[in-house]
């Protein structure tokens, strides 16, 4: 893999073209009171790549993802997105910038059907107000039909047709994760953040999810940043990996480079701390 810092990107081993830098984290430090969750971390995410953030428990991965998503505002450092420095923003503003995410602990509307849950992902594409939608006439109706169409394409893509009308609360865990992915995709994001997409899944579900992640990247050209515990999955899926431990970056590079990095091995296998 050609990993020089050319601005126009690189070509992956399987022949995909990775574009220029889309998001750049510059010297991020995040504190909760006296606790330092993230210490001086910098890395970038390029257009079209699958970028993983890994690390042992408590390494600050989820905090990092929350910084990327704009949910946490770091005390120090800058987040650059699409060539501009990003000011502190509200979640809906982040969503409008084309960033969507899934959660480690599933955050779906349990009582609603799968279809309705995925439809909520289209919120930013709906212009009519609640009153118009209540009457469901003219523009509101047209708008729903259009949005339903794109939602149906995602349902087809993720092969969840059979549970379209099923309330989410009745679904098994693996499927809920897939519904979450569907909802995130419904927003047509340019950057998709996945927080432990495979946590708690069995081997078959993991394989399915991996295939969907690759297909999303391949088919829609979506840039994906993911946090994952399962090393096998991470190494197979991602183009570049950031490794964190105790809030610090200890490695960054292709899966092979990271695998052979002594600091990373130490962090995972454990060494005596001074």
């Amino acid at each position, binding site marked *: 893999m050609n990993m020089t810092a050319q601005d126009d990107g690189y070509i992956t081993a399987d022949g995909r073209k990775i574009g220029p830098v889309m998001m750049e984290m510059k010297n991020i430090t995040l504190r909760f009171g006296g606790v330092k969750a993230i210490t001086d971390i910098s890395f970038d995410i390029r257009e079209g790549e699958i970028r993983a953030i890994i690390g042992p428990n408590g390494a600050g991965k989820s905090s990092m993802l929350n910084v990327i998503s704009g949910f946490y505002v770091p005390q120090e450092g800058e987040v650059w997105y699409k060539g501009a420095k990003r000011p502190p923003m509200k979640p809906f503003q982040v969503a409008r910038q084309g960033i969507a995410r899934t959660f480690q602990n599933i955050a779906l509307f349990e009582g609603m059907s799968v279809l309705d849950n995925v439809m909520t992902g289209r919120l930013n594409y709906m212009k009519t107000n609640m009153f118009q939608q209540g009457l469901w006439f003219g523009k509101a109706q047209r708008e729903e039909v259009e949005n339903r169409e794109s939602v149906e394409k995602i*349902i*087809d893509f993720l092969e969840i047709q059979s549970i379209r009308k099923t309330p989410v609360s009745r679904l098994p865990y693996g499927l809920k994760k897939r519904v979450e992915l569907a909802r995130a995709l419904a927003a047509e994001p340019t950057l998709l953040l996945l927080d432990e997409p495979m946590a708690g899944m069995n081997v078959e579900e993991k394989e399915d999810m991996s295939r969907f992640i690759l297909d999303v990247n*391949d088919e829609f050209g979506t840039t994906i940043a993911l946090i994952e515990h399962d090393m096998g999955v991470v190494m197979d899926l991602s183009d570049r990996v950031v490794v964190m431990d105790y809030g610090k970056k200890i490695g960054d590079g292709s899966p092979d480079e990271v695998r052979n990095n002594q600091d990373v091995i130490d962090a995972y296998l454990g060494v005596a701390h001074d």
Partner: protein
Amino acid sequence: MAQSSEAAGGLVSVPALLHRNATEFANKSAYREKEFGIWQTWSWSEAEKEVEALALGMINLGVNEGDFIAVIGRNRPYFYWTMIAAQSVGAIPVPLYNDSAAEEMAYVLDHCGARFAVVEDQEQVDKVIEIQERLHQFEHMIYLDPRGLRKYDHHKLHEFSHVQKQGRAARDEWIEDLKARRAKLDYDSICVMLYTSGTTGRPKGVVLSNRNIIETAKASSEFDHLTAGEEVLAYLPMAWVGDFIFSLGQALWTGFCVNCPESPETMMTDLREIGPSYYFAPPRVFENQLTSVMIRMEDASPFKKKLFDRAMAHAHKVGPQLLDGKPVGAMDRLKYKFYDLAIYGPLKNTLGLSRVRVGYTAGEAIGPEIFEFYRSLGINLKQLYGQTEAGVFITQQPDGEVRNDTVGVPSPGVEVRIGDNGEVYYRSPGTFVEYYKNPESTADTKDAEGWVATGDAGFFEPDTGHLRIIDRAKDVGKMADGSMFAPKYVENKLKFYPSILEVVLFGNGREKCVAFINIDMNAVGSWAERNNVAYSSYQELAGHPKVLAEIQRHVEEVNRSVAEDEMLSGCQIHRFLVLHKELDADDGEMTRTRKVRRRIIEEKYADLIDALYSDADTVSTKTEVTYEDGRKGYISATLSLRNAAVVPVQTKQVAAE
């Protein structure tokens, strides 16, 4: 019927029938498929255009007359069009089971020497690529769903819609060629080649001519008065002859509409939405539907449950008579009407069977309770008996003469006779041409006069003229004391219990019978939930003492009922075990149509059979399993062997144990 007179007028091939439908029923719905949550419809004239574009595209790709084209995918309109397009260019479609492992496909593709394959998606493309090197003649693959295939080498890989587009673009160049090829088709040209699932040995390619398919479609459509207004749901494997006759032969002959489900998992929902008027399902589907209804009723409130039980008791009493047009008292009629409004109607609607006018089941024996259940609801469910070599139909039940234990009278145009050894033979216009590249087997099966041996033992009932099938002729044997051993008979009785999925009975040449049993995970799982039985895996549930006790009760009940039959009373089950894994087609234990392969099971589990014939209480075993992707693994288990009470029979001493 208007069509019959036209049969002489050039309707000698499937493409000719398509052309007639496109003219006669131009704007009537021909194909529907649910996609993106909406039923997409194609009329007959649209279907003809799609087929033509594809046929032109095929010529453009270099398909020659006489080529074999493999079709691998689930039921989708595109694949039915592919088959007709293949016929239009003089090629022969060979539908394959889409859940076959790559190895099985390799055999079939190599045997027929397919140059082209039309497949559904990445999964199938990967399978074919895996075996491609070994197939010398194989050239091009056409796929339907481009997802995940972008990065593949597209030299020999083409997207379905692109092939059609190229066909349309090259219309002027190839249309005369296509017309000439179509005109050459006659009644004796090959319509399709279907591979038998092969209960024994390698699959055989059954060659069926246009005559076979069209004559069969015509006779069977007339038998049940099928019209262009029927709606069918195409969900059975495309490689199976039944689907070919129902969804292609009869559909083209009568012009009815073929509906394809959105995905295999949504089949029940789609069934409900379509409400087919003509419906075919193997007993297993009816069984599963009934099981799920019963499971839900077990979970219903006591009031609902009671109401349901009452209604069903009444339906049981008068339903079948009403369906057969026999006299029923006015009070009972009224009561039935009321329950129909309150219970049967909504139930049929839930099952998606409200509009079924003609329903068929075949392939395996159906349990009397299951059969009765559907008939008593007023669903005209009938049985037919057939096989691939016959183009399905050998016998079928006429309306009003439906019974659970017979398979009906010979279908129109079919002659049936019983051989000296009790084997059933038939001769009909639907009788296959030959087994491809296998003259020996052809000669073994079909004699010079055209009589075909079915391999089933049966007899005609003297008073009704209906055929009764006992078992596979080669499975019927003798026990050590000379009494008859007919495993199917006992197995079917057991399989009618919802908790039992599969049974294999052994005892040929032995003194007593023993059995392997597979539990039905759905039914037993829900039973376990209700009875607070905790389990973590199939294996654990299958070995749970409470489950075993429950199964033992069923076995003993069946023993009592078997004992009542003088001829077969020797087949009572003395000892049994519940298997630690489900019998699976991937492991070769069943055919793709889910028929048990006795010989293979006998070999594979020889240690378990020996243990059943010993005095041991438990047996430890290690079994090889094949995963969906072809990898292999092992599961070990310790199974308990149970003794079941048998009814002593007078004509024969039963060892008192």
